């Protein structure tokens, strides 16, 4: 009973981390129908950015994250404006290939600089390592707790931006009907760049949380890409709160799977669950129906 309760608590909290890993993939798909294969690797790139900045330039981790966000937004701008936007009108495959190519390039660059050594940001997170709450029944690991809280804050903030601001509405309008959005005076290509910028800003936050919760390597991105896929498949592409639900469910299922079948089964139960959802609810739990 105790173990089970612990699994549920940790699963939900881990789900928060999964959600924030998935958000960027979800909004990029939701807005521009682009499956960004580079999402995981770019997230890990931001973990490395933060690591280098903290270790060499700015010891204050909050400032370091802010600088990394700025750097990642610049990466997003270059990536979207010069690579993706150049091919996005030519069908799905070229854009998909571009993101795949970027993923491989970034991973190789990381390997040149950092080889395949394990890295960690946990020293910068004073909540990491200990428990923030301890009861007889369960405990709450500090890093998981922070992951969850930050994920919820980011999701709420994003949904406010999307619903209440002109730029947020313009982004949604672009995804709803690109032609009509242009007729409202929206520069839809700029909106794509802004969307990628937002996605990479959230990926940077995710990159920090991942890096301070787990060890990471230059090749870790692809594993997190699969988690991000899981989250959006379960929660529904393009739905912000769906992403949170998707993350929580994936976290829960993985930890329960590990509990019942052994740790080796953690990832596999997650994938099986994802396939079941895909078969039963092709648009995910909160996903909008098919779009034109």
């Amino acid at each position, binding site marked *: 009973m105790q173990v089970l309760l612990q699994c549920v608590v940790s699963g939900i909290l881990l789900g928060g981390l999964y959600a924030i890993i998935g958000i960027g993939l979800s909004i990029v798909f939701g807005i521009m129908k682009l499956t960004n294969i580079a999402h995981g690797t770019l997230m890990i790139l931001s973990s490395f950015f933060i690591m280098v900045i903290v270790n060499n330039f700015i010891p204050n981790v909050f400032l370091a994250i802010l600088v990394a966000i700025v750097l990642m937004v610049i990466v997003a701008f270059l990536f979207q404006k010069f690579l993706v936007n150049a091919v996005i009108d030519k069908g799905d495959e070229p854009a998909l290939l571009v993101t795949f190519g970027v993923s491989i390039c970034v991973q190789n660059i990381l390997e040149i600089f950092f080889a395949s050594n394990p890295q960690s940001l946990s020293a910068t997170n004073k909540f990491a390592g200990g428990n923030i709450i301890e009861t007889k029944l369960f405990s709450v690991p500090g890093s998981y707790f922070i992951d969850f809280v930050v994920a919820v804050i980011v999701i709420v903030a994003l949904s406010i931006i999307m619903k209440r601001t002109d730029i947020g509405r313009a982004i949604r309008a672009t995804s709803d009907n690109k032609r009509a959005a*242009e007729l409202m005076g929206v520069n839809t290509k700029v909106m794509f760049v802004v969307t990628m910028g937002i996605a990479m800003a959230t990926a940077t936050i995710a990159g920090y949380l991942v890096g301070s919760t787990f060890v990471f390597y230059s090749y870790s991105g692809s594993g997190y890409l699969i988690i991000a896929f899981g989250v959006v498949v379960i929660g529904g592409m393009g739905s912000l709160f769906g992403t949170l639900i998707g993350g929580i469910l994936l976290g829960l299922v993985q930890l329960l799977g590990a509990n019942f079948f052994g740790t080796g089964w953690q990832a596999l139960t997650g994938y099986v669950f994802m396939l079941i959802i895909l078969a039963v609810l092709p648009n995910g739990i909160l996903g909008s129906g098919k779009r034109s």
Partner: protein
Amino acid sequence: MSEKDIILKVEDIEVKYGDFLAISDLSMEVERGKITTIIGANGAGKSTLLDTIMGLNKPTKGKIYMEGKDITKMKTNAIVRTGIGMAPEGSLVFEGMSVKENLLMGSYVPESRKKRAELFERVYSLFPVLKEKEKQAATFLSGGQRQMLAIARALMADPKIVICDEISLGLAPVIINDIFDKVKDINKEFGTTFIIVDQEVQRSVDNSDYSFVMVKGNIVMEGEPSKLDIDEVKDAFFGMNKYA
């Protein structure tokens, strides 16, 4: 009569879809503050012409000027900022957004953002049903309500020119008359120029200050309602006699 004040000028344009010549050597001048209608049978090229003005199609030849400024090569979103708004064929409302959000998108352009409160009042008094349905997703609107939303959304930009393609599509006759009355009100009160496409020949002529008649990608006739021979217009519309 004094010199005409031309707000929009289309000069010798040619538009192709692949090899298909949809518009050839077409020129027209739209007078400021007037209601102009474009009449033509299905496939005459009316939507092609309007979409080309909006930059949604690019002409292979010719030029388009808005208030003397060459907008031929500009992108749609930039053309909108020169003061042309469009309620496109098939309304193209933002399905997943509420009626109010659709209207907010209508005034996305910074200059109109400042006047939002006033513009909301204006369109809500023109189309009270939109106020009623303010919070509903546009996807649940009826065909006629969508059309009203598309027109209202275009008006939310407070444009100098409003282009309505297939203004009466899916609307009941009483509502169409009502909408034309509203168009005239707006035109009188704010001096807004309208370019309207309506399938009904007589109605198009009656409700306009000036009409263009299109046949197969060309303008074959134009004039004020009093100077247009309605039978001649109908011949052109139905492709009869010399217009066959």
